[in-house]
């Protein structure tokens, strides 16, 4: 499980775009968000996270779905592909963590659960995207605030918040 300051292991996972994506990125901050298809909290925050990915050229964003698809078919790789296709494509990769190895290595608890790594791959923020899933105007403010600090080479003022969402569905 990653703690603030720990360096993340590099993983490579398949994405809905048919490519394998390695992360964290070399020499760039990376935002890793564990998320899924079936959780109402993940759905409520989704657009805000996508908007942040579009707004930050200086960082890589990846979405990772670790849920057990046997018990939760809405989170199968096929269902992930269908969702992205229905949306006409997403501006960030949606990765499948079938073995749940990545979620375990990070210590992901919920969907969503946000991890921000600096350019050295060290964890600088972990928690919720913003204080309230119900309020789109918050615009992933905690994520943005932490990422702004990381891009300026500073430690985020708020390195940890409580992740809020559905529990990760372990096998």
């Amino acid at each position: 499980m990653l703690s603030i300051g720990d360096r993340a292991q590099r993983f490579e996972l398949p994405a809905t775009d048919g490519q394998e994506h390695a992360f964290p990125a070399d020499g760039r901050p990376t935002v890793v968000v564990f998320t899924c298809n079936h959780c109402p909290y993940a759905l409520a925050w989704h657009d805000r996270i996508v908007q942040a990915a579009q707004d930050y050229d200086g960082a890589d964003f990846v979405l990772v779905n670790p849920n057990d698809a046997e018990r939760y078919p809405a989170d199968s790789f096929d269902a992930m592909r269908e969702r992205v296709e229905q949306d006409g494509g997403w501006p960030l990769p949606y990765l499948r963590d079938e073995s749940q190895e990545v979620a375990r290595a990070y210590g992901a608890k919920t969907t969503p659960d946000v991890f921000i790594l600096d350019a050295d791959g060290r964890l600088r923020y972990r928690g919720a995207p913003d204080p309230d899933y119900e309020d789109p105007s918050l615009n992933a403010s905690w994520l943005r605030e932490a990422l702004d600090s990381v891009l300026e080479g500073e430690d985020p003022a708020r390195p940890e918040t409580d992740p809020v969402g559905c529990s990760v569905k372990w096998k």
Partner: protein
Amino acid sequence: MRVELLWWEGCPSYERALDDLRAALAEQGSDPDSIEVRHIDSDEQAERERFPGSPTIRIDGEDVVAPGDGDPIGLTCRVYRLRDGRSSPTPDPADLREAIRRVHALDR
């Protein structure tokens, strides 16, 4: 009027749903402490209760927001649609009030 709230601990929406339901009952002149709260903690219990996910609120046995035909039974989190179109872990309070009003009207 029998009011049930069924929940599972994999979704943190239970307390919010209970608060909203209590407020809706009080607003409609019903006893907010009359809610039967039931914890669902196994697939077998979910099957037995025909539990489509957490939270599920039933009034006189009828779901306040009927699940879709294809929605599976089991330990999962429900996705509700608010009246403004947003996704939510809990029903729109207006849907709760409407369901309670409907039952009151039938009781008269």
